[in-house]
């Protein structure tokens, strides 16, 4: 079983290739879209590379859900994620760190959840056989 550090290093290499960024631009807290400039097709590229790099299967929507709330008013009200929405996030993405997001759960900030750390935790869970 690789250590968290080993996983992180491999995830970084994957992102360097998929997003054409320099390795020193990548930090654990870097957001994929905001900091590293990922666009929608890049997420598919990242998924392909992670599958190859770690020898795992990543089902559609598991790591990068395409639409978590689907406009459901129980989950989102006035542009903010409700308590029920946060519970939904927790159950669908147990590998996401919601501590910071919960303080100001604006829907528009949801892309900030997708960090290098999030991928590392997801892979770690997957390799441990505990993710979803």
């Amino acid at each position, binding site marked *: 079983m690789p250590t968290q550090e080993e996983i992180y290093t491999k995830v970084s290499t994957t992102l360097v*290739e*998929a997003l*054409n960024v320099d390795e020193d631009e990548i930090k654990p807290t870097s957001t994929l879209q905001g900091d590293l400039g990922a666009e929608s*097709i*890049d997420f*598919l*590229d990242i998924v*392909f590379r992670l*599958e190859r790099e770690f020898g795992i299967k990543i089902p*559609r929507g598991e790591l990068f859900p395409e639409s978590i709330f689907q406009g459901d008013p129980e989950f989102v009200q006035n542009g903010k994620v409700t308590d029920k929405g946060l519970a939904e996030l927790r159950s669908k993405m147990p590998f996401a760190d919601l501590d910071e997001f919960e303080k100001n759960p604006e829907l528009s900030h949801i892309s900030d959840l997708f960090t290098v750390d999030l991928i590392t935790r997801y892979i770690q869970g997957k390799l441990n056989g505990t993710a979803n």
Partner: protein
Amino acid sequence: MRWIWIDRFLEFQSGKSAKAIKNLSLAEDFFADHFPGYPVFPGCFLLEGLAQTGGILVGEANDFREKVVLAKIPKAHFHREALAGQQLIYDVELLHLRPEGASVQGRATVSEPGAAAPGPLVAEAEIFFAHLDQARSRQVFGEHNFVFSGELKHLLGLARSAGKPKDG
């Protein structure tokens, strides 16, 4: 300008790989400008040829139900020039295929007409295709599959008929 950058498929293995040929003729318009007196095949057209070979490979794998569009070329390396009078061979291998899209690895080699051995490597590229989201693209584009409507699909028909044994 017709937007077909391969002349014919030479080999086609459904869901696996495809090989296509592109003859570079000095009669093609762009050679007049690229460059006068030194006809180099433009790299962007070469990538388009690889993408068309790969795109048909990806489209055929799902019986042309998906709208396959070129989404991203994460890596492309150009090793040498290809000149008018030469033949390009595109070799494309399917790396990944999923409901959302696919990726292929392509290589282009160049040879003199009639040469027996495969020629030197001209370029290699990794190419990503997206399947336009089924639900959304139907709203925007309708049922008609505008990607595989005409010439691109005919090319494959040509490959199939070329592969059949000849009568008599």
